[in-house]
């Protein structure tokens, strides 16, 4: 019998009317999992709650410097009484850090967390995004007088004005006459024959331990550090020590004043030099009385024999004469080689113009020479090799820095924080510590805030 001629009864018997009462395995499995998985999630959260561990709710790994506080959410998330929220406020930051104000006339003061982003992984908190700075400096306004800084700085490469020190029309305010080109000649006359000076023979950071080749034997000691750098971070490696005669010039540029003496006059004010000369000659003449007799030749007249007569000076006269001769040499030749002197007609001693050598050129930025020591000096200070005038500014312009510091993965850091700091560290206040080691956990170094 063909199957197509099956009776309706047979066809109806194909339907099992109770099929819907038996859930399909898929549906059963789905129902079981729909209960088990959320339950598992609850158990997971409950486990952390029982262990009093809130790390599960952290929005990201803490920075390396705050990693010790990973288990101590309350160190930063201070819960105010009666309030549900426990946001990380500036008050929590200030329990460990001082963040001096940037500028008295700034239009608003951002929160600590708006620039220093936590929970973003093992990043440097001080490495702030440019937007933290450009939110003001891209359109700079002030609560006080109009700021004298550029008003529209958006980024370093392509959006930053030229450095103030090297802008057109700027010059070195120093009054010491120095010709770099001569000093860098290969056959320069030195104390013991020809010398070839190197940049580091005169320019070094305070951290350099080697003694000065052409100066005093003591290494550099004076530090010139920026107010931008917290005192705790100053290493003496960033900036060059200011030029000083004793350290950098004395070996070649002697201050001899008289053949009678090996000594040189002190590199000091004219009054001190004058007093020194007086003392020297006054001490000298009692032991050399023969020098009091000085020849006083007549005028050498034509067709007249030259007769010499001598006269004997008093000690005072002799000293006065010698001091005058020495000062003539010093004020007219020796000192003016480097200094600008003003000899007033009736003044006894000249006025020496202040040297005015800037100890730091970038007063609003931080530059670290130590970080750049892999470069040849002339790579950045190219003008130094040919500079002949003191007024030449031998600093590199922004284009030199942009060769390495620009945006991109294969370049040096170019964000604002690399050279500028927000906090004015001259106004830094000390912070009194408030953390203790947790009892029983001192060996692990876990800290808890009181």
């Amino acid at each position, binding site marked *: *019998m*063909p*199957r197509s001629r099956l009776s309706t009864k047979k066809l109806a*018997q*194909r*339907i*099992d009317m109770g*099929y*819907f009462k*038996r859930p*399909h395995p*898929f549906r059963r*499995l*789905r129902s079981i*999992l*729909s209960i*088990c*998985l*959320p339950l*598992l*999630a*609850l158990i997971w*959260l409950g486990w952390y709650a029982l262990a009093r561990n*809130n*790390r*599960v*709710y*952290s*929005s*990201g*790994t803490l920075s390396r410097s705050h990693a010790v506080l990973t288990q101590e*959410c309350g160190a930063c*998330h201070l819960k105010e009484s009666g309030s*549900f*929220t*426990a*946001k*990380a406020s500036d008050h929590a930051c200030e329990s460990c850090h001082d963040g001096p104000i940037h500028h008295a006339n700034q239009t608003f003061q*951002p929160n600590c*967390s*708006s*620039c220093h*982003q936590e*929970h*973003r992984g093992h990043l440097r908190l001080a490495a702030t*995004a440019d*937007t*933290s700075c450009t*939110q003001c400096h891209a359109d700079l306004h002030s609560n006080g007088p109009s700021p004298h800084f550029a008003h529209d700085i958006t980024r370093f490469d392509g959006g930053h004005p030229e450095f103030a020190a090297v802008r057109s029309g700027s010059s070195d305010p120093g009054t010491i006459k120095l010709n770099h080109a001569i000093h860098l000649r290969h056959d320069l006359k030195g104390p013991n024959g020809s010398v070839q000076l190197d940049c580091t023979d005169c320019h070094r950071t305070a951290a350099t331990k080697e003694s000065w080749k052409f100066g005093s034997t003591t290494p550099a000691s004076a530090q010139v550090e920026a107010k931008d750098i917290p005192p705790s971070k100053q290493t003496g490696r960033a900036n060059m020590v200011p030029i000083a005669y004793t350290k950098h010039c004395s070996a070649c540029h002697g201050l001899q004043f008289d053949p009678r003496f090996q000594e040189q006059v002190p590199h000091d004010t004219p009054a001190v030099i004058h007093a020194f000369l007086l003392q020297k000659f006054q001490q000298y003449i009692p032991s050399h009385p023969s020098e009091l007799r000085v020849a006083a030749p007549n005028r050498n007249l034509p067709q007249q024999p030259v007769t010499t007569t001598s006269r004997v000076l008093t000690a005072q006269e002799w000293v006065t004469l010698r001091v005058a001769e020495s000062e003539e040499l010093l004020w007219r030749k020796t000192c003016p080689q480097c200094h600008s002197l003003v000899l007033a007609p009736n003044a006894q001693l000249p006025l020496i113009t202040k040297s005015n050598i800037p100890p730091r050129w970038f007063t609003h930025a931080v530059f670290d020479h130590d970080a750049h020591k892999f470069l040849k000096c002339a790579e950045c200070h190219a003008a130094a090799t040919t500079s002949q005038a003191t007024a030449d500014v031998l600093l590199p312009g922004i284009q030199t820095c942009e060769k390495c510091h620009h945006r991109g993965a294969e370049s040096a850091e170019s964000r604002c924080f690399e050279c500028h700091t927000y906090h004015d560290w001259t106004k830094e206040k000390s912070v009194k510590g408030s953390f203790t080691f947790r009892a029983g956990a001192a060996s692990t170094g876990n800290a808890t805030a009181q």
Partner: protein
Amino acid sequence: MTLVSLGVATAVYIIYATRSASGPRGGSSIGLAFGIIGSACMIFAGLLGARKKVPVWRLGRAQTWMRGHLWLGLLSLPLICFHAGFRFGGLLTSVLMILLIVVVASGIFGAALQHYMPSIVTDRVPMETIFEQIGNIRAQLIAEADEMVDAMCGPPSLELAAVAKIMPVGATTVPDASGGTLPLRKFYSGELRPFLRNENKVSTPLADETKAAAMFDGLRTLLPGNMHETIGNLEQICEEERQLRRQVTFHHWLHGWLILHVPLSLALLLLGFAHAIMALHY
């Protein structure tokens, strides 16, 4: 509408991300707004299950709910990504993000299956039946085939006696084993019945339409013409079994993804709620 919303959200995010001093954060005003809207989309998507459970609720058409479930569920992923600033964050937020991605991906997969497969099922399973009836139908097919073969070849015990050349109980002679029905019985016992009972551990030729047709054609050459109708019926039963198997496979594909999608979405909603509470706290 969803695409327009996505476009607007993307534009807002780009402006917010580029201009924000501290970068995109979930705790900022805009970040929170993205999170709230994304969560609302997820909650609405989750309510589809409740709507299905209580169909008498006259809260819009089921089709509208399904459309909302699909589009708002899809929209929730980019919104939550905007909320998170495209970061995974900590432990709970990483788990949430992974759950969301898996739920949305499984949902897209399921939606694609449910869009394309019904036409495939209609085309390849013309004898489609109610899925839960398949076991019952299969049993009926076996009974029907047994009846046909027994009617043609006699009871199985008689045939075994003929093969073994022994006299069955109650019989007076040894049955003739050289009868024309033996190939049918052998084929039915060895191939077709195990196939109908779904006992084949390895693939059987009967599972393939072409090979099965060849087998039945071969059987027809071995058997007399009066048995060809029975062979034809058995071939139909075999085809029906193939379609039942095909229907099972399609059903597993159409509904299996829900085993992942539904439980994970419930876990996602629960953990998302916990995240919202604790994030607002901190």
